[in-house]
C-alpha cells in the first residue's frame, strides 16, 4: 500500500507533482515579492504583512550559487539512513528578483551545475514515517 503524501510544511507550495509552484506574497503597495509570504524581511513602505496577497512564483530560475551538505545537518532535519550528501542551490527568479534555496533533486552533483545553470521546481520526498511521505520542493535540471 502506498503511503500518504503530506507537505512537510503548510502553505508554501502546491502539491501538484507535474507542475508544482511556490506560494509567495506580493505587496499591493510596492509590487515586491516575498517568500515565504509572511516570514521574510519587511518593507517599511508596506504595512507589515497586511498588504501582501498570495501569488504563485515562477517555476524556472537560474542558480545564484550552490554548495553541498557533505555531513548530516542537525535536527530538526530528518535524516534518511544511510545519510547521502546532497547539493543545495540558491536559485534566482528573474521576474520576482528573489533568490530561493532548495535541495537539488537526488543524483544531481556539483559537477552537473554552475552559477547561471537553469533549473525548475520539483517535488520530492524529504523524509517518511510508517504512514506518510513528507514532501518538499527541490530544484531539478531543466
Amino acid at each position, binding site marked *: 500500500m502506498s503511503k500518504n503524501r503530506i507537505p512537510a*510544511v503548510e502553505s508554501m507550495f502546491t502539491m501538484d507533482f507535474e507542475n508544482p509552484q511556490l506560494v509567495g506574497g506580493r505587496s499591493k503597495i510596492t509590487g515586491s515579492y516575498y517568500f515565504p509570504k509572511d516570514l521574510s524581511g519587511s*518593507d517599511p513602505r508596506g504595512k507589515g504583512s497586511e498588504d501582501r496577497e498570495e501569488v504563485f512564483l515562477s517555476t524556472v530560475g537560474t542558480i545564484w550559487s*550552490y*554548495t*553541498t551538505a557533505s555531513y548530516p*545537518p542537525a535536527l*530538526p532535519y530528518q535524516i534518511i539512513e544511510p545519510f547521502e550528501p546532497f547539493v543545495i542551490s540558491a536559485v534566482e527568479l528573474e521576474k520576482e*528578483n528573489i533568490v530561493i534555496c532548495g535541495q537539488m533533486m537526488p543524483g544531481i552533483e556539483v559537477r552537473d551545475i554552475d*552559477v547561471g545553470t537553469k533549473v525548475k521546481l520539483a517535488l520530492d520526498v524529504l523524509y517518511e514515517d510508517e504512514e506518510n511521505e513528507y514532501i*518538499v520542493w527541490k530544484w531539478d535540471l531543466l
Partner: protein
Amino acid sequence: MTTNEIAVLGVGMHKWGKFPGKTFVDIGVEAGRNALVDAGIEWDEIQFLSGANTVRNGYPGWVSASTFANALGFQGCQIASSYAACASGATALSIARSQILSGICDVALVIGADQVAKGMFAPVPGDRPNDVDWLRFRLMGLSNPAYFGMFARRRMALYGDTEDDFATVKVKNSEHGSSNPNARYAKVFSIDDVNASPVVADPLRLLEICSTSDGGAALVVSSLDYARKKGIKDPVRIAGISTVSPTYPNAIIDMPYFASDSWHSVGDQHHTFKNQIAQHAYKEAGITSTDLDFAEVYDLSSAYELDWYEHIGLCEKGDARNLLHNGDTRLGGKVPVNPSGGLGAFGEAIPAQAIAQVCELTWQLRGQATGRQVDNPQIGMSINYGMFGHGSSVIARV
C-alpha cells in the same frame, strides 16, 4: 565628538577551546576578573554590569548579568542582560556606553561567555514551523556552513577566486593566531593541510569553517573623566559602535533565511545589510575605511573573510583576493585583518566574540599584542553581526 567617547580601562579573556569541566559562569567570571585586574579596579567599584546572554545554558544564560553579578558577589550595582545572537557583545557594550554617556554611571563591566555542545550549531529544540531558523534545517538541511559554501562559490563564479585563495586566508589567520595565548588553535597550517581536510560545504573544507568554542571575554569601560581621575593617561577610547538593523531589502541571502528579500521594488540586487553595519560605525567615529590601521572581522569561513574586506570598504567588490595576495591584510601589511587569528583560530563563542574583538583592538592599540603586534596602530575596527538583523561593529582609537 569627544563627548561620545568612552574609555577602555581593562580587557580580559578566558582562553577559548573546549572546557567540559567548566560552566559558562566560570568562564565569564575568569574573563571578568582578568579585565578588572587589567583595569586596576575592584569589583565593588563597578556601578553597572552588562551581560551578553547565552541561549544554550538554560535560564542562568538568559539572565547573564545577574548570573555573573551573583558569581562575582552581589554588590548591588545596576545590571542589564541582552541577547542579539553574534551581536550580543556589541549590544551589551552599547548599553554600558549609554549608561556612561548619560551620566548614570561612571564605570561598567561587560561580560560574555559560552559553553556549548560539540559540533555544528543547531536551532533551539522544539517544533516551530513559523521560525525560519527552524524551517531552514527542517525543509532543506540548510546549516550555517552551507551559507558559507554558497558565498564562496559565488565569489569563484563572479570574481574568479580560487580554492587556494580561500585556503590562503586560513593559512594567514593561523599564522596570526599561533602566538595568541587566548586562541584555541596554535597550529600554523599550510595550503596543503587545508586542501587535505574533508569538504564540509563545497568548496569549503573542515579547516576553513570556524568551529564552536567555549570562551569568554570582558571589558571595563568608563567615562573619560573617570579614567582621568584614576590617573590613566591616554586610554584606548571607543569612538563608534554600530548596532544598526537592516534597511530593506536584504537582497543577498543570509542566515537564517532560505530566501533573499526581493529587490524588485528598489532595483539594487547588491543591497545588503552587511554593507550597512560598518557605515554607521564610521559615521559615529567621524572616519572612513581609509583611516583604519587594522580590523577584526567575522571570518566564519576563510572565504567569508574576503567578503568582509569589501563590506567594510577596504576594497571594491571583487578585489579582496588582490588585497590578500599583496599581503595588505597580513601582519606587516597595509591594513592587517584578524591579527588575533580571528574566529579561524578561536572558534565561535557567540556572546563573547564581539567583546573578544574589542579586547584585541585594545591590546593592539596599547602595543601589547606580543607576537602579533600591528605596527603602531591608531585606529582599529571590529565587525560582525547577529542573524535576523543585529549589526555589530566597534571602532577604537588612541
